[in-house]
């Protein structure tokens, strides 16, 4: 019991990090505070590329208003943002850009994939579009829709808040930076192919639907 893990102290030159703690009542109280603060002050980085960006702007405007959820300030600099909201389709040409923006965001960071195109490539199952940004960056919440209604996006934001409130600082793996590996990909190649597989009618290229 206490704030340090007795086993960690014996680990020679390793620094005892605050994450190497066994969960206890104190940590849950600290978690509650930290997560409440983080969830209610998420500053979004609006990575709006296409039509979903219009719906994002509508959600941010006065009728629907995400400021009441803490997203008061749209952080257009990734260095000052908490959530990356990818609103819109992502061409392969823009893939290194979103990867760089994501890498520039400091931890703790989360991402929301807004719309069908960001989640799976949407209707654009072709040579130029990324089939879901989860092949490029880790995604926490997927919001379906083409485009999602503002209420839908707000539901996604609330889901993200719920996810954040369920986190714990004792869990090291949460704040791991998942970088692009030496293979040039962030996920294993088979996984990227699996995520990008066509489904439904688009399996048949000769049909119009």
């Amino acid at each position, binding site marked *: 019991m206490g704030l340090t893990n007795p086993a960690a102290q014996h680990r020679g030159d390793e620094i005892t990090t605050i994450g190497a703690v066994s969960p206890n009542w104190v940590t849950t109280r600290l978690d509650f505070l930290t997560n409440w603060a983080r969830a209610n002050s998420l500053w979004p980085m609006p990575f709006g590329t296409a039509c979903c960006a219009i719906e994002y702007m509508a959600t941010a405007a006065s009728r629907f208003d995400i400021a009441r959820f803490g997203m008061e300030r749209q952080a257009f600099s990734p260095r000052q943002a908490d959530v990356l909201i990818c609103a819109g389709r992502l061409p392969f040409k823009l893939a290194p850009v979103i990867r760089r923006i994501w890498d520039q965001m400091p931890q703790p960071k989360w991402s929301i994939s807004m719309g069908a195109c960001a989640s799976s490539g949407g209707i654009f199952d072709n040579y130029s579009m990324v089939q879901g940004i989860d092949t490029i960056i880790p995604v926490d919440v997927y919001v379906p829709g083409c485009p999602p209604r503002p209420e839908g996006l707000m539901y996604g934001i609330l889901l993200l808040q719920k996810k954040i409130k369920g986190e714990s600082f004792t869990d090291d793996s949460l704040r791991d930076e998942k970088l692009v590996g030496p293979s040039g*990909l962030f996920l294993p190649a*088979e996984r990227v192919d699996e995520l*990008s597989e066509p489904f439904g009618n688009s399996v048949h290229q000769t049909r119009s639907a």
Partner: protein
Amino acid sequence: MPMSPVSASVPALRAEFGPAVERHLVSCGDTIVYVGRDRSHDVLAWLRDTPGQQFDYLTDVTAVEYRDPELPLEVVYQLRSLSRKADLRVKVALDKREPLEVRSVVDLWRGADWLEREAYDMFGVVFIGHPDLRRILMWETYAEGFPLRKDFPLRGHFSRAEQTRQALAANPEAHYSLEELSIADAFDELPADMRERLARGERGFLK
């Protein structure tokens, strides 16, 4: 029976260029003229410069490949005369069995710069004489081919993982042309009033 409204440019073209003008037709009120590849630049220059024609605005340069593989690939020039308010479509048919080359019209209309780059990127048509012919829609090191050709599969040639890998490896900042870089370098050599205007964020003159 109403007459098909053939543009007056057609008989003038035939008088000037004879056999280089292969055929013409009217479709949905638009006049389309087919011109041989060898004299395409001369024809377009004549259309721009001749007083009765004055097609001073190049609306578009694009290309068409038809589903029938035996039909040639056509490079399409959509011309407009702003003063006469007239349109004309000039097509150059390129046999697919030969290299897809046609003379660039950048020297006639500066707007053709990016339009021809797009036609090159999507169809592989090489515009001879173009100052900076490189890809514009796909990234410059895109290696899968020319996407809008009929033999190009919808999802590309490579696997999704390979496409993602190549996309992530591309350098997005390497897209600037030599002209843009030299303009940035030569900022100090610009006239003082131009530097001031650029510094203030103004673009161009407003009269």
